């Protein structure tokens, strides 16, 4: 029993890290623009396809040498993060920016539209005639992401709890990235400008902050975090699918709301919490109920504490 609990804690933490990374992208944008970027999950999905394509092009698999794997992984992480950041930035420039002064519904609906377009792109991408996409015959089918890290148990083969190198990688790399983000937001000039803009965009503008630039930086960083998360996710889950952005995006958004949307530490807390809830509900309630449990929590939190766990109620406007 204790082993089961420990194992689920570990699974929950690793899953939670991925949720937290994606949730950061939602929460940062919401904090500044009060806008739910529905397409964020699909940026995450397409970034995973970038990694999968790279892995296929480089011919990496579990037989590759350690040096090739390490190099390939770094390349994947850089490529997916840059891709995610630039894609998110481009979407903002082309689609959302002209709608800044429009009623709130306009950017939200546009984001749903962008999400559709990206999903469709993902579907076509899966139809590429590369070996790693299964020859492209079945575009809509989930694609296997090769298991690039050794599947050894770091706690010894006799242990009932499995801790694999990929778990360590997910948790370690996520912590590094989150610390870097914390450093940027707390200690750099850009971070200060971001916090000021989130607090009050017009006052920030009066203080000489280039709000447009801050928004662009936010989309760039958020997208890059999503891209990074997609590599971590693919390594961990070993499957890539054109609809994975939709569900993981919703979960990550739930995490952001649970933590208090707009609140950066809240997104991390919410992500971890949601990861844990998901792991334990899969174990004790059944994986088929997973979305119902998670969205049930979302509804309950929104009804009883709309500001989330760490959010302040002061921001709520009627």
């Amino acid at each position, binding site marked *: 029993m204790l082993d089961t609990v420990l194992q689920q804690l570990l699974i929950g933490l690793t899953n939670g890290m991925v949720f937290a990374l994606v949730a950061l992208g939602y929460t940062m944008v919401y904090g500044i623009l*009060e*806008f*739910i970027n529905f397409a964020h999950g699909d940026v995450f999905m397409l970034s995973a396809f970038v990694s999968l394509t790279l892995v296929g092009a480089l011919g990496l698999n579990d037989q590759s040498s350690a040096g090739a794997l390490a190099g390939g992984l770094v390349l994947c992480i850089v490529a997916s993060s840059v891709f995610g950041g630039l894609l998110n930035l481009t979407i903002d420039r082309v*689609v959302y920016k*002209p*709608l800044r002064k*429009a*009623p*709130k*519904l*306009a*950017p*939200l*609906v*546009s984001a*749903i*539209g*962008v*999400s*559709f*377009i990206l*999903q*469709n*792109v993902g*579907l*076509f991408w*899966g*139809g590429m005639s590369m070996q790693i996409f299964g020859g*492209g*015959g079945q*575009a*809509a089918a989930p694609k296997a992401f090769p298991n690039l890290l050794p599947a050894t148990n770091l706690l010894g083969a006799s242990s009932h709890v499995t801790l694999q190198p990929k778990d360590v990688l997910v948790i370690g790399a996520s912590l590094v990235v989150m610390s870097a983000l914390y450093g940027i937001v707390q200690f750099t000039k850009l971070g200060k400008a971001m916090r000021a803009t989130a607090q009050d965009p017009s006052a920030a503008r009066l203080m000489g902050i280039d709000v447009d630039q801050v928004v662009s930086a936010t989309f760039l960083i958020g997208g890059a975090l999503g891209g990074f998360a997609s590599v971590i996710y693919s390594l961990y889950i070993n499957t890539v699918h054109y609809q994975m952005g*939709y569900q993981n995006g*919703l979960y990550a*958004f*739930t995490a952001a*709301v649970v933590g208090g949307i707009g609140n950066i530490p809240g997104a991390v807390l919410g992500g971890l919490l949601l990861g844990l809830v998901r792991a334990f509900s899969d174990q004790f309630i059944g994986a*088929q*109920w997973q*979305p*119902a449990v998670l*969205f*049930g929590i*979302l*509804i309950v939190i*929104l*009804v009883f504490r*709309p500001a989330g766990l760490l959010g302040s109620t002061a921001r*709520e*406007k*009627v």
Partner: protein
Amino acid sequence: MAALLKKFGGLPVLALVVLAIYPFAPVVDWALEAATGQALHIDRQLVNIFIFSILALALNLQVGQAGLLQLGIAAFFAVGAFTTGVLTVEKYPFQIGFWGAILISPLAGAIGGFLLGAPTLRLRGDYLAIVTLGFGEVMRIVLLNLENITDGPRGLNPVPAPWLPTLVRDAMSPAGDASIGTLRAMYFLALIVLAATVVCLKLLERSRIGRAFVALREDELAASCMGIEPARIKLAAFTGGAALAALAGCFYATNLTTTAEPNTYDFNYSIMVLCCLIIGGLGSIRGALLGAALLLGFDNVISPLLTRLLQTALGGESTHVMASFSNWRWIVFGTALVVMMRLRPEGLWPSSPQAEELHESAGEA
């Protein structure tokens, strides 16, 4: 008739007359079949369009008229379909048939809408959107997993066709072909209910509640100062919309003869309905009808035709994912949403000019 013409103008009445005659003289079908050699069965598509229009009008009541951003309309559509399923299939002892189900399913939808709406409608716009989205997913998962009740992924079937007096049935069925009779019966039933829905919604628009909707959309604070209770009005619209969506669900299940699998009623379905409204014109009844016709027309008529052209152009049967036009639908609708929001946020066919003016003056203020 004259009063109707005066109230609604000539176009809707003309459309109704044309649609009422169409199944007996499907001229468009004949023309298209002559041109492409493909039987498209426009009358069958029209039944689907009528049903989808009722659903679109339900969402329009909630989103367009009351201004409640709801992203889970499919949940209430599913409630209607599965209520109908439970009440009519052989598996259950009720077997009350279509006429009983059509009375009870809107009631079930209304109860669902009330239970969800009562605690959540005070949430601000985008939070409400997320709650309804979450509710939609929860409903889908529950329907999928309660296999004892819903038969899980198989769905409940067969849902029986509506009972009709022998006289009507014979009149509908040419040369005693019962399947065409059933199709025509569904056609006319859906058309009648759709027309009645439009009339009711038109009357509602001009009623006290309809004016309260406008007031709430424009300025909630001012409206509540004028003695309008926002909570009650919103709940009424939400409940009403849910009931109407469930009514559409009842028709949907009867027309398909199955409740379909619960995964049909997913987030994407809800968004497709919203898509109709945005393309047609949010808050506009005729816009919702146009949107529904365009959307289903694209899926069932234009898309197969284009696929055929594409295949011919590529020379033979290509199995590539991009060679089937139905795989382009999300790009098409996604782009439509983005472009509409940018260039024509009021939709292709917005409601009366007065409403447009109202929106403009609200935008300037």
